[in-house]
């Protein structure tokens, strides 16, 4: 054994092997794959899932729903918005006009209504009686004079109107008065007539006011 050399030793597998081991192995592997049936496989969920997944989902969903409730979003319909603004403009203009037109009437009707309904206070009644007394005294004092003056005023005022509308026709001087005037003038001398002529302007002026 002193001359033992490992290099010279024959390389051998000394372990026992089952007969046709490799052939059967190949067949087994191939058959396993070929006979693979999807239906026989377990239906498993193999993905990782975060902790409290469904709790978080529910919380977030409820948050979103409540936010929607608190702040509802109104979609602006431009057609409706334009129509509404036009209606507002025309409506306010109409109301303003109708109010200004009927303002005077309203006040009078209001006062009438107030007279009809509201009972008068004692002080108001006293003031009204005093006022009516004073006006009646004034009327009594002024009745005759006023009537005359009013009539005069009325006639005076009426005359120029007549003048304006109808030109006043000058009455022709009667022949009798004309003859009297010539007689009267004949009685004056020439120098007296010249003196009268000098003062004629004043006379005419004075005639107007007499």
């Amino acid at each position, binding site marked *: 054994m002193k001359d033992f050399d490992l290099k010279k030793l024959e390389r051998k597998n000394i372990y026992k092997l089952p007969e046709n081991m490799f052939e059967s192995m190949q067949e087994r592997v191939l058959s396993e794959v070929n006979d*693979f049936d999807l239906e026989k496989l377990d239906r498993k969920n193999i993905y990782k899932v975060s902790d409290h997944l469904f709790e978080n989902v529910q919380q*977030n969903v409820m948050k979103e729903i409540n936010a929607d409730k608190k702040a509802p979003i109104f979609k602006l319909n431009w057609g409706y918005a334009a129509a509404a603004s036009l209606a507002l403009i025309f409506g306010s203009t109409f109301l303003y006009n109708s109010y200004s037109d009927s303002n005077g009437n309203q006040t009078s009707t209001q006062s009438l209504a107030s007279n009809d309904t509201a009972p008068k206070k004692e002080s108001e009644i006293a003031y009204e009686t005093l006022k009516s007394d004073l006006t009646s005294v004034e009327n009594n004092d002024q009745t005759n004079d006023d009537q005359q003056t009013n009539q005069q005023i009325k006639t005076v005022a009426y005359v120029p109107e007549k003048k304006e509308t109808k030109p006043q026709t000058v009455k022709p001087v009667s022949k009798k008065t004309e003859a009297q005037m010539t007689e009267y003038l004949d009685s004056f001398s020439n120098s007296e007539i010249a003196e009268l002529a000098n003062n004629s302007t004043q006379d005419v002026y004075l005639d107007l006011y007499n």
Partner: protein
Amino acid sequence: MKIKDAEIITLMQDPRTRERGVRALMDAYQSRLYWHIRRIIVDGDLAQDTLQETFIKAYQNFHQFKNDSQLYTWLYRIATNESLQQINKLKRMQKTDEDPEYYMQNLVADNTHSDAEEIQIFLQKAIQSLPEKQKLVFMMRYYDDLPYEEISKIVDMSVGTLKTNYHYAKQKIEEYIKENYEK
């Protein structure tokens, strides 16, 4: 479940009890809807947001719910639409040179439990390799065991088309697993 659905509907229809109704609705359907959304979207945070949005939409639009359909069908429809919207947003946001299918499969790997079986991971990756319609049909039939008639109301497809889609989806998944699992 049917009696519970009826109760939820009654609560939701009355404005005074609507808040209680939405709580009952969430208690009843949050788990089923979450996993439906999660299988489509894969990402956990995005799936949570989508579930919230689904319930909010259900609350806001409950007047549109017609009693002639099942409540869960209506909810699945909202959840599916919301999920597809999120997926489309994701696809638009991602880089143009990245394959969307590859992106989703990477997302599967990133989101699975550490102790998940390998075959299950392959199954999820295989689902993500499917076209959108086949994916939806397969998931609702395979995981939620929904009848084809109800699925047709959710995705607006005929029962015949749904059966064909499911058959093709299953075939593709099995092929995917055979190809990839032994490597």
